[in-house]
Each structure stands twice: as C-alpha cells, then as structure tokens.
C-alpha cells in the first residue's frame, strides 16, 4: 500500500504482506524498490482522491514462460 502526495511523490510505503522468510521478504523488498524507483507518479491532479492511496498487487507468474 502506498500513499502519494499531490505532486506524485510517495509519502509512505507499507507492504500489506510482511514476511521475514527469505524468499518472500526478498520479493517484497524488490516490489517496494520497484514502487519507489518509479516515483514520482503522474496522475491527474483533479482526481487526487482516487489515487491518494494505491494498493499494488504483485504477481510475477507471467514473467517467465514457465
């Protein structure tokens, strides 16, 4: 879950799933880095209420051909 400021910068990142088990923690760290590294986000300011908080669901299943 991320909270955004009106200028598209991130005010807070909070993983919904927490885990200290190696692989899941690593995946969460990677997802958080991905979210942080892509800021600032450009969304229409008039709809700020809509994107003030965004919940990302990361599912890497489609990334490899199997």
């Amino acid at each position: 879950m991320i909270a955004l400021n009106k200028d598209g910068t991130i005010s807070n990142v909070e993983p919904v799933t927490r885990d200290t088990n190696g692989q899941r923690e690593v995946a969460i760290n990677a997802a958080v880095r991905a979210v942080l590294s892509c800021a600032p986000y450009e969304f229409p300011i008039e709809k700020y209420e809509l994107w003030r908080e965004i919940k990302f669901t990361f599912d890497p299943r489609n990334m490899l051909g199997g």
Partner: protein
Amino acid sequence: MINQMNRLILLFSLLLFFSTVSQAALEIDVSEGNLRPMPIAITTVIDKQNEQLGLGLDITKVIASDLAGSGLFYPINPKAFLEEVNSVDRNPNFNSWRVVNAEALFTAELISDNERFRINYKLWDTFSEKSLEANYLVFSKNKWRNVAHMIADTIYTRLTGEKGYFDTQIAFIAESGPKTNRMKRLAIMDQDGQNPILLTSGKDLVLTPRFSPNGKELVYLSYRNGQPQVYIYDIQSKQTYVVGTFPGMTFAPRFSPDGTKIIMSLQEGVGSNLFEMNLSNFDRKRLTNTSDINTAPSYSPDSRNIVFESDKSGTQQLYVMDAGGDNVRRISFGTGSYSTPVWSPRGDYIAFTKISKGRFMIGVMFADGSGERIITDGFHNEGPTWAPNGRVLMFFRESPGEDGGAMIYSVDITGYNERKIETPGYASDPSWSALMN
C-alpha cells in the same frame, strides 16, 4: 511456481491495469515485469593497515566477479560513485547511491592482526534505506578467496532469497593429447575456474568424478586395473580405494544425498543394472534386474526416489523409481532420446542430456516429466550438474572435428547467462560440490 519466480530480481514495470476502484485505495495488479540484472554498488574493501597488500581490492574483485557472473547483478563501475566510503560504521548518503542507480550498496573494511584478518561488511537497500546485512568474518590469508565467495553468497542470498553457490568447487576431467588417445586426469577447481588442481597423473584413464555431499571425496571411474571400476578419491589424504569387488565392470557412480551410499551400474553379461552399495559395511543391493542398459542413476534430494536412464523401450529414456527399486515409471516422452539425468538439489527439476536429430541438448523437466525445457542446443552438449541452489547448471560442450574437445560452461536454468569456465585445457564431466563452508 510463484516461489520460483520470486527469486529473480524483479523490477516490476508499471504497465498497469486499473482493475477495481474500491473504497479508499486504488487497487492495481502488476503482473508483468522486467528481468534485468540488479545494479549494485560494491565499494572497495577498506584496508587502512595493509593497503600495499591489495587484499581488500582482491576480495572486492572476487565479490564483484561472482555477482556479475550470476547474471542477476550488475556491479556499477566504481568511477561513477559520487561518495567515497571511508568507514563501514557511518550510514551512507543513500541519495548519492540512488543517483548512480545503485539499488544495493556493499561496504566493508579489513582489519589485520598478525596473520589473522577480520572483514566487517554491510549490505544496504538504497531505496528503503535499510541495512540488509551487517556481519564479519575472521580468516587467515590463504582463505581470502573463500571469504570473498562466502560474502558474495551472503549478498546473493539477501537480495534474491536463494542460497548462494559461489563458495563451491567443481570436480572435472582435465583433458590433453590427441583425440584418439586423450590423457584424462581427475581435477578440481573453484567454481569460477580459479585454483585448478590435478589429482591424478594421467597414467590411467579416469572419467565421471562426482563430489561427495561433504566435498571431501570424489567417486569416479578409473581403468587403473585394466577393467573400469568405481573408485573413491579422498581429497585431503590423496588416497584412492575401490568401491567393492564385483564380477563385472562398475560405472556411473553417484553418492546418496547423505553420503553413506554409492549408487552405480554393474555390467552383467549384455545388460547393465543398478546397484546401491552401503559404504559402511559394503552391503550391496540390486535395484534393477533386466537385460537392458540401466545407468546414470541419481537420487532425489530426499533419497526417496532414483532417476536413471534405460534403453528398455528401444531408445534411452528417463525413468524414476522408488529408492528400493519398485514402481518404475518412465518420465521422458519427447522426440529423441534422453540421458544423464541429474536431480536438482532442491528437488523440483531433473536436468538431462537430450539427443535429437543429431544434436545434443541440455534441458530440464519437472520430476514428474512435465514442463520440459531445452536450455542449450548444439553439436554436442552433455552431462549437466547442479549448483547447490538448483538455479545454475554446468555441463560440457564438445567441439567437432579432429582438433575438437570439451569445455565446461555454466548457464542459468532459465537459459540465460551462459558462460564458459576458463580451464587450462580441454575439460569435461563437471560435478558441482555443495557449499564448502
């Protein structure tokens, strides 16, 4: 399946599908991503006392080389660094590392006391500004390569969630001489090709070494008494002993995962059958009893099953059976023949050599035979061996012709990042050890 994906360093690209807008928070599913090496800043190990030794720099180079060699990391050129690290104790200025695109930062310092060295090191996540690892190792100078590999393993583990594989060795056959009369010698080297050591003189033809699980012994085939027989070589004592006396040739040996048993083929008349030999009392147990060629056995990591190849269908195919020899079922059904199955140390995949239309390929399939995937394909690729984390394979590739010969390659099981391992000459039959420390 998800776990297999998670271990890759992902930068999820934000090509988003706006799915549902629920109450307060917008929900976005990210199901696509980029697979690309993670940029990491590896700063030179600080070595204030012994700068002339260059040990800090040597360790840094090995760590960077290991991580780059995995294909999952991209060590950033130190010339781009904006901040000089003078101490591992101060928190870095994360912004100056983010500016150079570093997603992780490694810092370390070396302290020496006579012959003992201590390396203090830290790993940082530059985006979340968290410490991922802070630790130290104490070592004597001759172990500096192991220490570098161990640190690289730690970095790999903290950033991928997988066990590392850098502090490992490869047993192999060093080859020299003409193709019609190749000299073959037992040899070991570090995983990165460093420190090659020849263990036998070349007088006797030797083949197919395999590491014991504790890395102290090799089981291999030697023609030392004229007949091919399975022997064990003790790396520390340099002693060799034969694994039981059998009426026929023994070959295709491999240790059980706990190191207490050897599984191998025994030639009996026209057929070759699988036997298990207990190393503590030399009891032998027959596992197959047919007049076919049954060979190349490999245990599952839980020791419950054995995969092997047999030509009982008319061509070489892969079969799995219970460790006691019951419940034999064929798992390979593609076009061509299948050989040299090796069970992954994590249990999920079986790697193999596939021969089809005159080409020799390395591939993997799930242990039930599904999901076959070819990793490399060419004139002659053979004999895969697994890194201890089950993510990387080595195999040998033979070039054709009178001057042709074998070289060892490593490749990620995705098929990416194929690399040749530098060896002093032709090299074949690689066997990857478990982690050494």
